[in-house]
């Protein structure tokens, strides 16, 4: 059975995560698109912390008999992997877009310098 203190600590930690993410979005320092996975992480962890019977049931499905809160760690780790993988795809896309922009700038500057003499750079 999950110790009550572990449930309370888990609930507080997930609530803080949710509040921080909402505050970042509110202050426009985090885009909704990238906040969604973090919010999902917070909500799932909160539900699993508060819903003690549920956590115990899931733990027994997974064969975790000695210490059910270990499932919280496992779920949190899984979500962190998801977030990081998501970021890797985002970075890859940004890299491609960046290179595309650099190439366009090089091509446009060359065309511009043909149409009129280049401005003196200091």
């Amino acid at each position, binding site marked *: 059975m999950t110790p009550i203190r572990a449930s309370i600590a888990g609930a507080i930690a997930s609530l803080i995560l949710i509040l921080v993410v909402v505050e970042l979005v509110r202050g426009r320092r985090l885009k909704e698109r990238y906040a969604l996975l973090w919010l999902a992480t917070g909500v799932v962890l909160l539900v699993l912390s508060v819903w003690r019977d549920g956590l115990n049931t899931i733990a027994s499905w997974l064969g975790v008999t000695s210490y059910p809160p270990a499932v919280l760690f496992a779920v949190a780790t899984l979500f962190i992997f998801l977030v990081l993988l998501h970021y890797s795809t985002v970075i890859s896309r940004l*890299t491609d877009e*960046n*290179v595309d922009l*650099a*190439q366009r*700038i*090089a*091509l446009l*500057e*060359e065309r511009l310098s043909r149409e009129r003499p280049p401005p003196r750079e200091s």
Partner: protein
Amino acid sequence: MTRVVAIVPAWNEAGAIGGVVDEILAFDPAITVVVVDDASSDDTSDVAAHHGATVLRLPFNVGIGGAVQTGFRYARDEGYAIAVRLDGDGQHVASELEKLVGPVRTGSADLVIGSRFVDPGGGYRPPFARRMGIRVFARLVSLLGGQKVTDTTSGFSAMNRAGIELFAVEYPHDYPEVEATLVAVRSGLRLSQVQVEMRERQAGTSSITFVRSLYYIVKVMLALLVASLRRYPRLEAARR
């Protein structure tokens, strides 16, 4: 008169680029020489422009593949019929260009690669490890692409409009040659290889250091496997 563009990627090659441009123009003054300056910190751009090249200057370093692709985009947008690609360090000999351009001009190939290994007595003997690497990649590309390739790491090549249009859209960003060869073959380009001589570097240092070799090998292997799983549009229609 077919318009030919020479694409020359260069990164901090101020010491060699002037000679490279001169040599190409001496071979054929009608060729447009496009030097793609990959954000050099020396005066590569100025030297190239002074020697009569058109200079495409990237705002920050994007790597050899991204630089070369800029040249292909230029060739595509400006309507060139044939593009050749030479390295900016002077290791590719411009007087060998006719061997590359010839088959493209007559239409017997879409992409011609200057290989150091077509002729076994060719004289080029790289260090053992590099020779093995080149051979393994060549085998792999031959296997995955279904056409025999002997030197996939060579950047010395010529191509027609179909090749230009393919590479303007589809070109790997770092260590591009091996993967680009496979992409070309899988897209249905007819590949041909000719024996060429290459020089030792005239100035600067090779971008392939020992430390990067491992990344090079792993990256290229992964890229080849992924490229062989992807589908590429067949380019039959683009050909004359």
